[in-house]
């Protein structure tokens, strides 16, 4: 009985404390909530619009031939961008060969040897700043080293430029993965007599392998969509090329060149190439996100 009356009196007190409906404060609260909710919906519109438009414009030409043929001469219809897909894979392959060893080994230093030191702090800081360096400057860097000194524009020069973008991503993400490996695993390995090298190579790195794979995937997805560093390193090529020492076509550069020339068939091909590129990158991004999320739970 007394319990109930106490409840009702505290309910009444709570009622008094509540903001009165229709007061300025209440209206302001509602307005701000509505406004930010509107913002949240609004910023997703470009994503939906771009995906929708690329799919609508690109799907018409999508067929097996776009993967197996090379681009037609300006103004002619048909053809595809098979050579650009191969070129993208080759430049990304070269970039990965450079970036993965450097990025993973650097991450091992940060997580296993340099944890908490000033050196590690400085390196991490530099890597973060490196992430913010405009992609086109990676192109200038590779141009001034590889293109000038080693026989002109080439797929290799493009790979070097892309590796600059990949290294900090591989390093930072791998480091996060290594840090998640429990300390006990390292101690146990050392306690049974393994050397530090054996511990890292046979216990820590294998345990962090899923995150390292995610790190590589993220870096490849980021570098694979970049055109700016390739414009004057890998350049472009209308023909099939598998030679790392020669200019090579890539999907992003092909999209750029075909979108700024006034031929309708080429523009059409640019849309289809954009659909393929966007499709691959969005699928990879979504999958890698789900993979890392499962890891955390």
């Amino acid at each position, binding site marked *: 009985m007394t319990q109930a009356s106490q409840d009702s009196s505290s309910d009444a007190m709570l009622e008094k404390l509540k903001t009165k409906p229709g007061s300025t404060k209440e209206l302001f609260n509602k307005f701000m909530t509505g406004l930010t909710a509107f913002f949240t919906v609004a910023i997703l519109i470009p994503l939906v619009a771009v995906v929708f438009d690329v799919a609508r414009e690109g799907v018409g030409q999508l067929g097996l031939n776009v993967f197996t043929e090379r681009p037609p001469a300006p103004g002619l219809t048909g053809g595809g961008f098979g050579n650009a897909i191969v070129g993208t894979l080759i430049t990304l392959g070269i970039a990965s060969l450079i970036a993965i060893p450097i990025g993973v*080994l650097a991450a091992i230093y940060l997580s296993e040897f340099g944890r908490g030191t000033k050196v590690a702090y400085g390196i991490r800081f530099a890597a973060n*700043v490196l992430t913010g360096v405009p992609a086109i400057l990676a192109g200038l860097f590779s141009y001034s080293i590889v293109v000038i000194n080693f026989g002109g524009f080439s797929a290799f020069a493009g790979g070097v430029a892309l590796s600059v973008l990949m290294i900090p991503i591989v390093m930072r993400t791998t480091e996060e993965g290594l840090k998640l490996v429990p300390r006990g695993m390292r101690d146990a390995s050392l306690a049974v007599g393994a050397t530090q090298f054996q511990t890292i190579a046979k216990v820590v790195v294998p345990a962090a392998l899923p995150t390292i794979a995610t790190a590589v995937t993220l870096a490849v997805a980021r570098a694979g969509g970049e055109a700016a560093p390739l414009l004057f390193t890998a350049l472009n090529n209308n023909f099939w090329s598998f030679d790392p020492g020669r200019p090579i076509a890539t999907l992003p550069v092909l999209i750029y060149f075909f979108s700024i020339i006034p031929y309708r068939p080429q523009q059409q091909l640019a849309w289809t190439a954009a659909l393929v590129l966007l499709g691959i990158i969005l699928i990879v991004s979504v999958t890698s996100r789900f993979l890392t999320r499962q890891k955390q739970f």
Partner: protein
Amino acid sequence: MSSFAGESQRFTKQMISKRNSPERIADQGFFWLTLVMAASVALLLIWIGLQIFTAAFPAISTYGLGFLTSTTWNPVSNVYGLLPQIYGTLVSALVALLIAVPLGVGVAVFLSEDFIPYTLRDAISMGIELIAAIPSVVLGLWGIFVFVPFMRPFYTFLNSTLGWIPLFAGSPRGFSLLTLSLVLSVMIMPIIISISRGTLNQLPPELRLGAMALGATRWETILRVLIPAGLSGIIGSVMLALGRAMGETMVAAMLVGNANRLSASLLDPGSTIASLIASQFAEAGRVQVQVLMYAGLVLMFMTLVINIVAEMIIKKFQNIE
């Protein structure tokens, strides 16, 4: 007792020296290998700067600092000035911020509060991350064929009603600094949202409880307590976004109009440092390459300063936390 300690120490030393040398060499070698690789990541940043500086040096000694304040760009007579591009880079990035900051911070607040269920918030933030994953060249393509034609009537309207303001003067054709800014604002929004949201989520819950206990409403708490407390993280995210907007290349090259002119109007075509390099480098002669390297060095300096300050602000905040 002490002899026992001595004995055990000798035993440990024996055990250590017993480790055969290949194992020790592998350990030492591996340590140094990782250290060298880690150091090379930091040195890479310096190397990029030095390399571009070296390549730009002939142009720097020829054109000096006057390059930054002159407006002519004539490869035929080798007269070069970067002022229109510096102006275009700064103005397009700042206008993009003007749009992206209120929206981005608003969304960050909305997603860090419990207005909607967690799963829905998670799905939305995933969509926002996907915006960041769209290749810039695809956004450029979309801009050329969809966004510019779509915006043209609005630009014409803006021009005919507000044309007396220099910002909206001229004859709008679609490719302009404003178009670039609008697309840039979409591209940098994910950075602002993810870092600002992270900062707001990390704030100690006592701040909110304290404000609520004093009788503040939800939005009073957000605007007077939470946002001021997370301000450094928000400012850091905005500066990172500024750096990203200034360095963005493909969208700029495809949408800004690539006109070497210095115009007060946002509806006029212009150019940025990055778009200049992208559109001219492949066909440039020897001197022009050096000049474009100089332009790249200017861009590197601008973005580096902004990024370093941004990282310092974010780091400082994280350390306090």
